[in-house]
């Protein structure tokens, strides 16, 4: 990790300012991509946009019962069942890299437990009426 300080300092050095990392500060216990069993890309055809929303399907009523799902899969479904969440929000909420969340969401799409909204078609601008609504919405904030 780029921000890991003083990598070469000997453990028994105990120089002033030397400190140990505990709990969350020490980094994840499980390497992030272990949760995807080493996969770095999802099975779905489209790369999931950061603002694509994950919406649970009715079949995902009780994801905890599905023994094939990992706890992270279950948590994604649960987080989205109140209100659909974007890929970026899920990554921040689960404290996982975006790439890992993409793979996990891709699994859920495969299993037909969730579907994903496609925000704006790549390389296209949103249409004029939506832009007007955004301006009105911002002014009304």
């Amino acid at each position: 990790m780029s921000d890991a300080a003083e990598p070469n300092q000997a453990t028994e050095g105990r120089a002033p300012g030397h400190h140990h990392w505990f709990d969350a500060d020490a980094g994840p216990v499980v390497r992030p991509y272990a949760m995807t069993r080493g996969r770095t890309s999802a099975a779905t055809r489209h790369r999931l946009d950061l603002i694509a929303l994950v919406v649970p399907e009715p079949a995902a009523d009780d994801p905890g019962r599905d023994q094939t799902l990992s706890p992270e899969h279950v948590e994604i479904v649960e987080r989205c069942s109140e209100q659909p969440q974007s890929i970026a929000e899920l990554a921040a909420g689960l404290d996982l890299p975006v790439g890992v969340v993409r793979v996990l969401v891709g699994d859920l799409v495969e299993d037909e437990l969730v579907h994903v909204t496609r925000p704006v078609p790549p390389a296209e601008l949103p249409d004029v009426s939506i832009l007007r609504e955004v301006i009105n919405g911002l002014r009304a904030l």
Partner: protein
Amino acid sequence: MAFGRSSRKKPLVEPVTLKILVAGGFGVGKTTLVGAVSEIRPLRTEEVLSEAGRPVDDLHGVENKTTTTVAMDFGRITLREDLVLYLFGTPGQDRFWFLWDELAQGALGAIVLADTRRLEDSFAAIDYFERRGIPFTVAVNCFEGARRFPAESVRGALDLDPEVELLMCDARDRESVKNVLVAVVQHALVLADRSHAPATT
């Protein structure tokens, strides 16, 4: 296999999601700006980019790297139940540019946040958005203690196109940031209108 929608639960609203990027040099106030209007505390998300996960056509400056961790701060504004705007602070360092392509894809526009003490930090972002044809507005963050310059001289120093708007703002102030956002979307609207009615320029 198709599943019928369950009628037991209220169907979830699936909002249209849009994004605006906030770019600018390191420490210019991008996260502060996002936080001033976001309904959530700005969230941080990290992407570990590896050789395997890297898009094949975006190699500028990272040819010798195998993995990179980049952090993005973002916020959310629910404009209506069915319309949600996300603001993404772009990673400040130049070497993360390849990530911008993904961030920029489908973005409705961008804010380039500038600090008059370090205007050169904004050149990269301005250049990027100009070349991609992404509508952007320059917002000069008026830091306390920084010398104020007239908008025209800042504009000249940045060599902005006449149609690119330049605003003075306070990245901590919600109303001020709202004005900047409205300016970005208005600029996007002008460009979208023009592309719908092609004219010789």
